[in-house]
């Protein structure tokens, strides 16, 4: 229904456009040709606007319209709105976007609109002039891709990415160009007038692969992460390569004869262009990062700097005719890391939102216009040429992927297998850049219309056919589960556990290649760059920054979400009772299906980190990460709270979620509180990232240090009382209980333990996530500052009293500071 609505709204908008035509309107963006249908509003005098007629005729016009004045912005806005309505429409029925990539849908809507326009003999707005596209529509798209690029996996795979992007595109262009030239020689097709240069130019245009549509499929099918990054990076860089080649070939196409010197010069130019673009990008990135160092007083305009500098990088690169796409991509990559540390959190959110929004609009508009223009341009169709182009595009892409993978696999730690290669090859959809390049072909190319038609044909073919069929194909070759209902819940849960484990171990091993340069760069970064570019530079890992932001904002948010579940507290009791008399429950098939559904919808996906960041159409989704971090933090905090040791009946298996009972927890917190107090400068903050938490907001250090003192004693007693045996919880309980009574009498900060103790007695079984939240809740309430500093932090060190390796880089906690 909404789709129909949006179409009819579109139609209405169009009618409005048509109605407001006046002759003599002009302007670069979207002009209507002079001879179009005009219907003038009756009030307006026929012989032209006369605001103040001769004195005799005067009667003050009550209602006037002056369309030409607002025409250009008005029409731009209408088009953008129309495209956005289309986007809303798609998501009404969720399944559509699953099976049909968004680009398909946008093109279809464009086709419909184009058909409407054609039937009323209206011309589409001439947006696709070279300037408009390259100066206004392309930069946001590229900025979007560059800004949300996951840097770590990207740099780890940079060799492969560049290999596929550069060499792959070259391979494709030259291969297709040559084969098409060969075809041209055949008289039967009647295209003999296209010479080699023009063929190469055309081949370059259509080898700009845009596999973005494929990324969405890859996400859902949990494809190998490496593949994902390579596809993403390739998509980005081959735009740059294509544009460079295009410019080169346009130039070459003009020349009557190509000499070997020219080829050599071409190669040299290619490098100049590429590396020059990167250099400009990095330069502007640094300048922008440096600027944001000083913007602490002008927070409102911080996002402006990001956009202005990136756009400036783009324009300056265009000025020198070097690769502006590379410039803007490297600018945003460089900028992002430093800027996100300098700017306020709100600015950070704003930047991300606006970048995503602009990129999204641009891409939408381009596909939309593709659809419109398809109907309304004159086409020159040549069966032979076009069909062969399709064939060659497909064949050369497949061949290219095969050959290139064979060559680069030995250099990769994780080689691509056949399934990956298939995904890469089949995912070679063409997209926006091809379209724009085709339209901006210089007019002196004889067969321009044919090229445009052929390009549009290829884009439509690949987007529709390959785009729609790639998902079933990939699922088919990956055949993970045959029939979900036959699979037991056990298998589902345990398999997910195993996947998380493997992901964790892989992360732990890190990447075993390219470490040398990475290490060097990191050192350089920490020593020099951070000091210059970041406002009071601190050594924080990215996870700390993330954690800070999340904790401050989301402790309450999570509470809100689960607030309903706290009312499930009674269910905890009932669960406990159920445990006492386990009777085999009969599960209906419907129940089972529900369970499967629940699990599949709610279990965390693996590597949320990467997948979330590379979703093209939406902002990075931090939700799961937040949940995991907060939960761990809360569980750790909870577990160390004095009250939690009170219950001797706590079942052996659980007090903490993520950790076994034991000393390891204290160590986690060793340096944490220390960093907030000034008499503990000796503590290194190189330990656990989460613990290395420095709250930016002003937290009175006095109270924190006093709070720190209190539990110290308690944990010391814990230490003494407990043997280093993580199973031995009972001992721990008694020891800590003794400790708590002692400390509680002496502390004035007992408000933290207090609420906990109130909660714990009724609960025998710590079934606790809701427990954690209640604690968080109480703590948040009672602290005037919602920064959850864990009550104990402190002790850790003494843990290793006996066999401490003095060389271990851990702070020497001095327990005498009470």
């Amino acid at each position: 229904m909404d789709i129909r609505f949006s179409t009819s709204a579109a139609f209405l908008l169009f009618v409005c456009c048509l109605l407001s035509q006046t002759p003599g309107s002009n302007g670069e963006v979207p002009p209507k040709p002079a001879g179009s249908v005009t219907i003038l509003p009756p009030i307006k005098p026929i012989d032209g606007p006369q605001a103040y007629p001769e004195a005799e005729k005067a009667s003050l016009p009550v209602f006037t319209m002056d369309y030409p004045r607002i025409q250009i912005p008005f029409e731009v806005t209408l088009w953008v709105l129309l495209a956005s309505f289309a986007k809303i429409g798609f998501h009404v029925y969720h399944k559509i976007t699953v099976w049909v990539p968004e680009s398909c849908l946008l093109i279809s809507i464009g086709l419909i609109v184009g058909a409407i326009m054609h039937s009323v003999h209206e011309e589409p707005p001439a947006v696709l002039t070279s300037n408009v596209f390259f100066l206004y529509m392309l930069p946001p798209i590229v900025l979007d891709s560059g800004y949300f690029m996951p840097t770590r996996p990207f740099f780890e795979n940079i060799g492969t990415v560049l290999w596929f992007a550069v060499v792959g595109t070259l391979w494709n262009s030259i291969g297709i160009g040559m084969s098409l030239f060969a075809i041209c020689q055949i008289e039967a097709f009647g295209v003999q007038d296209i010479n080699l240069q023009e063929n190469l130019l055309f081949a370059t245009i259509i080898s700009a692969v845009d596999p973005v549509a494929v990324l969405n499929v890859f996400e859902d099918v949990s494809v190998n992460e490496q593949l994902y990054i390579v596809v993403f990076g390739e998509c980005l860089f081959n735009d740059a390569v294509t544009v460079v080649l295009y410019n080169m070939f346009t130039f070459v196409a003009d020349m009557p004869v190509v000499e070997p010197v020219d080829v050599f010069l071409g190669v040299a130019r290619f490098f100049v262009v590429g590396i020059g673009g990167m250099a400009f990008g990095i330069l502007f990135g640094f300048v922008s990062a440096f600027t944001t160092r000083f913007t602490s007083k002008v927070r409102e305009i911080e996002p402006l700097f990001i956009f202005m500098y990136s756009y400036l990088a783009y324009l300056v690169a265009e000025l020198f005719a070097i690769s502006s796409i590379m410039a803007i991509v490297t600018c945003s990559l460089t900028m992002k890391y430093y800027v996100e540390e300098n700017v306020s959190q709100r600015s950070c959110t704003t930047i991300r939102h606006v970048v995503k929004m602009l990129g999204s609009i641009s891409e939408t508009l381009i596909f939309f216009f593709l659809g419109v223009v398809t109907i309304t341009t004159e086409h020159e169709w040549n069966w032979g040429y076009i069909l062969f182009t399709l064939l060659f595009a497909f064949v050369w892409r497949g061949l290219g992927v095969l050959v290139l993978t064979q060559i680069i696999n030995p250099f990769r730690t994780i080689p691509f297998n056949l399934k990956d290669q298939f995904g890469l090859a089949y995912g070679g959809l063409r997209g926006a850049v091809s379209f724009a390049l085709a339209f901006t072909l210089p007019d002196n190319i004889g067969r321009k219309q044919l090229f445009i038609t052929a390009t549009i044909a290829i884009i439509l073919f690949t987007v529709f056919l390959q785009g729609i069929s790639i998902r079933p194909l990939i699922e088919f070759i990956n055949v993970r589960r045959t029939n979900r209902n036959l699979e037991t819940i056990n298998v589902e849960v345990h398999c997910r556990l195993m996947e998380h484990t493997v992901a964790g171990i892989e992360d732990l091993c890190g990447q075993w290649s390219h470490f040398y340069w990475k290490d060097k760069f990191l050192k350089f970064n920490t020593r020099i760059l951070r000091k210059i570019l970041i406002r009071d530079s601190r050594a924080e890992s990215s996870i700390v920054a993330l954690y800070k932001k999340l904790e401050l904002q989301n402790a309450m948010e999570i509470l809100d979400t689960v607030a309903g579940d706290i009312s499930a507290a009674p269910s905890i009791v009932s669960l406990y009772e159920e445990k006492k008399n386990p009777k085999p429950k009969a599960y209906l098939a419907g129940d089972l299906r529900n369970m499967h559904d629940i699990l599949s919808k709610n279990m965390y996906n693996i590597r949320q980190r990467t997948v979330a960041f590379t979703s093209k159409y939406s902002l990075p989704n931090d939700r799961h990460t937040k949940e995991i971090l907060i939960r761990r933090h809360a569980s750790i905090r909870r577990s160390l709270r004095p009250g939690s040791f009170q219950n001797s009946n706590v079942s052996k298996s659980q007090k903490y979620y993520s950790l076994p009972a034991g000393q390891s927890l204290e160590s986690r917190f060793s340096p944490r509180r220390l960093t907030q107090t000034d008499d503990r400068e000796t503590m290194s903050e190189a330990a656990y990232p989460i613990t290395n938490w420095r709250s930016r907001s002003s937290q009175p250090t006095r109270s924190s240090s006093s709070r720190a003192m209190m539990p110290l004693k308690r944990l010391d007693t814990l230490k003494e009382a407990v043997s280093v045996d993580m199973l031995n919880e009972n001992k721990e309980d008694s020891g800590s209980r003794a400790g708590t009574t002692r400390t509680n009498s002496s502390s004035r900060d007992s408000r933290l333990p207090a609420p906990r103790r109130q909660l714990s007695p009724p609960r025998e079984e710590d079934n606790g996530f809701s427990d954690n939240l209640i604690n968080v809740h109480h703590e948040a309430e009672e602290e005037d500052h919602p920064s959850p500093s864990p009550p104990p932090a402190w002790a850790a060190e003494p843990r290793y009293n006996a066999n401490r390796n003095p060389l271990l880089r851990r702070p020497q906690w001095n327990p005498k500071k009470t």
Partner: protein
Amino acid sequence: MGSRASTLLREEEIEEIKKETGCKLCQNAPLYLSQTSITNPVFNSVFSREDFQRIPELAINPLGDRIINAFFPEGEDQVNFRGFMRTLAHFRPIEDNEKNKNAAPSEPLNSRTNKLLFAFRLYDLDRDDKISRDELLQVLRMMVGVNISDEQLGSIADRTIQEADTNGDNSISFNEFMKVLEKVDVEQKMSIRFLH
């Protein structure tokens, strides 16, 4: 830090580790490992939990803490390189020629059984060789978002136990665990491609 470190591990020890874990690459591993996230100024000493916890990706892995815990033998807080490699060796892919060999007197670390044992131990914190309902619930809760109520999770856990439990003790023993997963390609799931 890097190149010097590899010499600190004695040759014989490397040979032993290679034999034990079947890991041919582990000769180069010290070099690599010292450069990765687990950095440790003196290489041949030990890793502690902090070193693992420093890895940001593990922090946001829902099972991060348990994975870290799996590296440390019971009750200890440090693991040396050898222990580390032993644990990592669980994830070595099973090569085809090994599948057909008769089981060596001591099963290789990356056999299917040992892989399953690793996974089992992620659940079974108290090492009583049984996954109780609580342990199952904890792991489930860790892996699942906040939108599932305790009741639902409880019934999922119940169902899990019910499916697997054959001897009626309301918990899953290792044999039952293995039986439930007999159709699953554990060898492929629990393998890391570059650990050969």
